[in-house]
């Protein structure tokens, strides 16, 4: 259900961190700006407590009048102070806003770059990579893993820098104002640090447990809803309900556990804060009242004027509270950094995946494409552990020495049982896979020497399962190529006979289709696929034409006609199940277990009286039965 939560197992890794930081490099200006802003904010923050201290000591204590002299002067001073305070607040807000934006830009840009890199990489990886990795896992790479890296940068690195700045500035200022009081207020901070660290770890574990239990509950829910009718038919309701209740209770317990730790954590921090206040209050009183120990440890009594003021007391209460947040952030920072390690490792894992089917440095393009296809003693297996040296008898071979020569403009039908290797033949023409032995050549050039992109532009594929993208019908036909004029789309649709159907839809060519084309019938989807291939106007056409059971006779007829039309005049390799289609082909190639066993024209093969002849007889009989 969810990706395995193994993030906590990963140690902090400098190598990975450096690689992540490489993504930050292009935004060096933002980084520098951010650091400067963080520094300015750190410097500005303690000023407010100092202004308050000044206000209290200079204007608000009973002694103030004696010191300043006139009430008017006091008022003026007070007004100036208030204005200064307000002005600085606005400035501070400006700095913080700017900082938030800078960090936002930085994080989002890095996020965007990583996401684009991973996506582009995945687009370029060979098809076999997609055969091996479930789509769900790949999605996680471009979503939650990338997000984890963003957390790493914005929450981890940034708060590391910012918190350090603030702590240093505060410590310096507090020490310089009154080092004794400063030291006393610092006593709480280590406790806060360790308490935060302790609770954060506990909470992280508790939340992880919660997520695991939630995933269990969700997958059981999903399973039970999907299989509810089975549950009912087999009278399993009570057992399922009990089983679900177990998981549901476990989730509740995990949640209660999280609440347990959380409910402890927050009050502990709050109490620590007040302890700091109480300490400052008491020791400041001690100094103000002049009861205390002097530097030599002797007990002193009597008023020691000026050592500490009420304003200083108030300022210290403020400053010590403001130190709490950065200390807590710092305590959590390594958790965040660590959490991103596993994600970055997975992402770099994708980026480092070797592109097995890559263009050679001097890959050729074919400017004048003719459409000749040659298979020369081709041996092929999907299993990548199979090499040219693997013995012929190995059961993993899919194609076993195929020799096939297709002339430009020739149409060839591949016929044979499931697993005979027909689909593989078509996949090799587009070089979706590389062959282990022999060579596949297009226009006399080994496909390995051609630029993949260029090659595939000349090869159109109509797949068994028509894949429709979310978008409009038109965007699916043009494959989002805005350069294809609308007229050409209409022309192609008229040609394959799907134009009228499209017009009958609510928004015509602009009708939205959903993923996997849930809104269209099988037959219509197939016609659209032909139209799509036709619009792309390939030189070689590969058609994987599944016999479709759920197509009415009229649509069936249309598909047949459309197929014949799109084949006309271009090299076509067709895996066909419809007799009429096969009969229209120039040549029929019968395959069995990775080998070509018969080939020839329809009439030749019928005359030959082999496999094809019998297949033909059977299908004819079926067709008769259907009528």
């Amino acid at each position: 259900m969810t990706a395995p939560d193994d993030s906590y197992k990963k140690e902090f890794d400098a190598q990975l961190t450096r690689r992540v930081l490489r993504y930050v490099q292009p935004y060096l200006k933002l980084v520098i700006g951010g650091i400067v802003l963080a520094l300015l904010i750190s410097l500005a923050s303690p000023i407010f407590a100092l202004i308050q201290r000044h206000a209290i000591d200079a204007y608000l204590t009973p002694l103030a009048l004696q010191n300043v002299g006139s009430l008017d002067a006091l008022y003026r001073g007070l007004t100036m102070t208030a204005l200064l305070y307000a002005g600085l607040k606005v400035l501070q807000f400006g700095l913080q806003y700017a900082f938030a934006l800078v960090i936002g830009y930085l994080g989002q840009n890095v996020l965007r770059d990583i996401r684009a890199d991973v996506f582009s990489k995945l687009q370029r990886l060979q098809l076999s990579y997609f055969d091996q990795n479930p789509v769900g896992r790949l999605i996680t790479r471009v979503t939650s893993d990338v997000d984890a890296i963003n957390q790493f940068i914005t929450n981890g690195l940034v708060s590391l820098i910012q918190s350090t700045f603030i702590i240093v500035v505060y410590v310096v200022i507090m020490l310089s104002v009154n080092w004794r009081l400063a030291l006393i207020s610092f006593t709480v901070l280590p406790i806060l640090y360790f308490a935060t660290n302790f609770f954060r770890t506990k909470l992280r574990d508790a939340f992880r447990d919660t997520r695991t239990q939630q995933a269990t509950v969700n997958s059981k829910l999903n399973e039970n809803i999907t299989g509810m009718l089975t549950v009912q038919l087999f009278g399993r309701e009570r057992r399922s309900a009990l089983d679900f209740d177990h998981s549901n209770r476990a989730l509740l317990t995990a949640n209660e556990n999280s609440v347990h730790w959380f409910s402890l954590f927050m009050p502990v921090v709050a109490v620590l804060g007040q302890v700091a206040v109480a300490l400052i209050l008491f020791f400041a009183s001690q100094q103000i009242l002049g009861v205390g120990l002097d530097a030599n440890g002797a007990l002193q009594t009597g008023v020691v004027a000026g050592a500490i003021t009420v304003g200083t007391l108030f300022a210290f209460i403020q400053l010590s509270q403001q130190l709490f947040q950065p200390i807590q952030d710092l305590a959590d920072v390594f958790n965040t950094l660590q959490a991103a390690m596993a994600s970055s490792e997975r992402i770099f894992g994708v980026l480092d995946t070797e592109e097995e089917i890559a263009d050679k440095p001097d890959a050729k393009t074919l400017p004048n494409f003719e459409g000749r296809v040659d298979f020369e003693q081709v041996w092929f297996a999907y299993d990548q552990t199979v090499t040219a040296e693997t013995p012929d008898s190995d059961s993993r071979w899919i194609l076993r020495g195929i020799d096939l020569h297709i002339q430009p403009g020739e149409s060839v039908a591949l016929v044979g049982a499931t697993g005979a290797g027909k689909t593989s033949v078509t996949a090799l023409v587009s070089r979706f896979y590389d062959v282990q032995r022999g060579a596949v050549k297009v226009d006399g050039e080994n496909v390995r020497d051609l630029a993949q992109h260029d090659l595939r532009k000349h090869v159109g594929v109509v797949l068994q399962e028509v894949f429709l993208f979310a978008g409009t019908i038109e965007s699916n036909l043009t494959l989002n190529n805005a350069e294809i004029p609308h007229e050409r789309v209409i022309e192609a649709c008229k040609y394959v006979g799907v134009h009228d159907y499209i017009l009958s839809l609510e928004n015509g060519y602009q009708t939205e289709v959903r993923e996997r084309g849930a809104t269209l019938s099988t037959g219509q989807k197939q016609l659209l696929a032909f139209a799509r291939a036709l619009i792309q106007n390939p030189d070689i056409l590969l058609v994987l034409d599944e016999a479709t059971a759920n197509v009415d006779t009229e649509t069936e007829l249309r598909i047949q006609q459309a197929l014949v039309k799109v084949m006309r005049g271009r090299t076509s390799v067709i895996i066909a199940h419809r007799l009429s289609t096969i009969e229209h082909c120039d040549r029929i190639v019968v395959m069995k277990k990775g080998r070509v066993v018969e080939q020839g024209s329809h009439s030749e093969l019928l005359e030959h009286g082999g496999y094809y002849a019998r297949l033909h007889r059977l299908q004819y009989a079926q067709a008769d039965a259907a009528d």
Partner: protein
Amino acid sequence: MKRLFLCAVTSGGRLDNPGHFYVKGGLRGGQSCGQMPLYIPQKVKWYGPNGAFHPRPCGVCCPAHELSSGRLILVTQNNFLSLSPLLSDMSIPNMSAPTRFPLDSLRSLWPYLKMHQRQYVIGMVLVIFANSINLLPFYFIRLVIDGLTGARDGDPGTPGITLAQAGWYALGIVVAAVAAGVFMLYMRRMIVVASRQTEYEVRRDIFAHLQGLDKPYYDRASTGDLMNRLTGDLSAVREMLGFGAWQIVNIVSGFLTSFAVMFSLSWQLTLIVLAVVPIIVGVLTYLARLINVRHRLAQEQNSKIAGKAQENFSGARVVKGYAIEDREIGDYKAMNLELLKRNIALTKVDGPLRSFMSLLLGLAFALILLVGGRLILTSNGAFTVGMFVQFVGTLERLTFPMLMIGWITGVTQRGLASWLRLRELYDARAQVQDVPGRTDTSIRTLDGDLRFQNVSMNYGTREVLKNIDLHVPAGTFLGITGPTGSGKTVLGQLITRSMDPSSGVVRMDGHDLRVIPLRLLHDAVAVVPQEPFLFGDTLANNIAFGVEKQELPLVKTGVSVVGAPPVPNIPQQPDPERVRNAARLAGLLDDIEGFPDGFETLLGERGVTLSGGQRQRTAIARAIVREPAILILDDSLSAVDTETERKILDGLREVSQGRTVILIAHRVSTLRHADKIVVLEEGRVTEQGSHDELLELNGHYAELERLQRLASDLDEDDDAIGDPEAAADRLAARREAIRDAQSHQTQNSQTQPTQTQTRQEVLK
């Protein structure tokens, strides 16, 4: 509770065949109409019995005999029997009290709240306590500060403070903090835990309710939608109950106590605050709304971009096949940029929220400093520095509550809307269920004698079964065949009462299926469906899935989880010997023994993926092990090769002694040994009899037999591939074929120019 059912009536006064109509959206109680209330607040599309669209429902409530054609009516539960089948999940509970969102929504939540009444009440009292005590530290600070100033000003008229006193006040601060901390701790353990418990209870109850819903419901419901409700919506409700409830009390009590203290300190300053706070709250609420909107926009783009990735990875073949990677990457980058823009837009309102709050409070402080300072200087000791400090501190306490006001409306609105969606699940009713008064509990056993009497089944306007009359005596081995869509599966589903027929009666042992207790019926019938659903459990548990000898305790619903006994342990599945035997009969034993973990092999996502044939055989074992009176196999040998099929059929004959077996199949080899074979075409029985009789009839079945004989000839040819002699033949054939191909090539190259021409004509 009075239940009401909606139905459409096809013809004047006749209720025997009410037909179907479909409702999109939802129904809810309310507005009165005649004597009985009907209220449909949501946009609903109505379809009449013939599929015609009705612009609006006519909520006419009148006695059944006055009904005229095509009307939508309300009927009370008493009429249920005569109105079956109704799409009864459209029932509207508790219609007697017309209600309105969101009050109604809250009222239906009440039973759950009531279970945790104590926790919520105590929790809220604790919030109030904590909020009050939290104001004490500032009081102590004030006393110390004033005492210190008094001691320092050299004026004997102002009271000073001793260090001991200061020490006590400092201790007071700590004590107050500890007390408030303890209150907050228990508050969380009360309210937040209660909300988690409510979440558990709602999930438990809805799960139990879902178990009672039937096939017609699940045919319409989407798993994704149900899952969304049980996860996202449930979380939103829980958040409203836990965090929401707490915050509302927190905000109210926080404001009240703080303002009381501030007022007692200085009414002048309080007036300033009163003028400023609404502005702050207003701005924050506005920001919160803005953040909500932008957050949603960013989320939407986020799912869009994830959807794009999903699509491109699943459609890798198309993307690569048409070499459109670059265009797709460009597209993705554009979407990526849009996401960046939306996230930045969010950051613009979201990022500085805290500093904005600090700015507003800072400005308020400056104002208070100005006015408060003058007060101190002029009030002659009535307003002191200590009081000033206490005032400022008390005001700062309100930072969080002020921030929360903006959020709390969102949390509540989402919570209520989500609860409404959850309510819809509770409101769904099964059409196929035991009905007190109708169900005959005196029926204890079933032998498996089946009789279809003039049974028809309609899906909307489509008739899938037409006037089926069929008798299957107990112990018969019946084969059913026919083209796709001829109604074979539906026939099987009527026997398990997955749905009730539109007209006619299905009887077992002479009883109408609708009066047989469902549990008894399900115990008597075992089904192997076309596409069996297996669970993510061990093979053994999957096979023993439906074996339940001891009565398991029922999971109680509608009760509080507080103090509930632990969930009883589920007894282990029955003896392995029985499971093993079933696996053997289903021809699965060899496969299972081939797995390293044997019967303990885990299936599904985290385990082994079975092949189609293995899945089918597991499902067969699962059915056999129950030793049912009737065994239905719905095309469940299709993915099994002929030899295994023969083994399974032998096994079936072994267990089918005295049982009724209904075998739906396409292969003649599967059907030929049945006692009787029925051919269904377009919902009608067109042929029936034994294998030989049907061959003689020379109809559909005979044709099927002929085709399959031809096909098996081909299969044999396929098998001959390993034969060396055949291989030699094949080589010769290939050489010949290549020669043919070469001659073709020359032929083709000659015709090529014209072909290229054609292509150019096709697409200019």
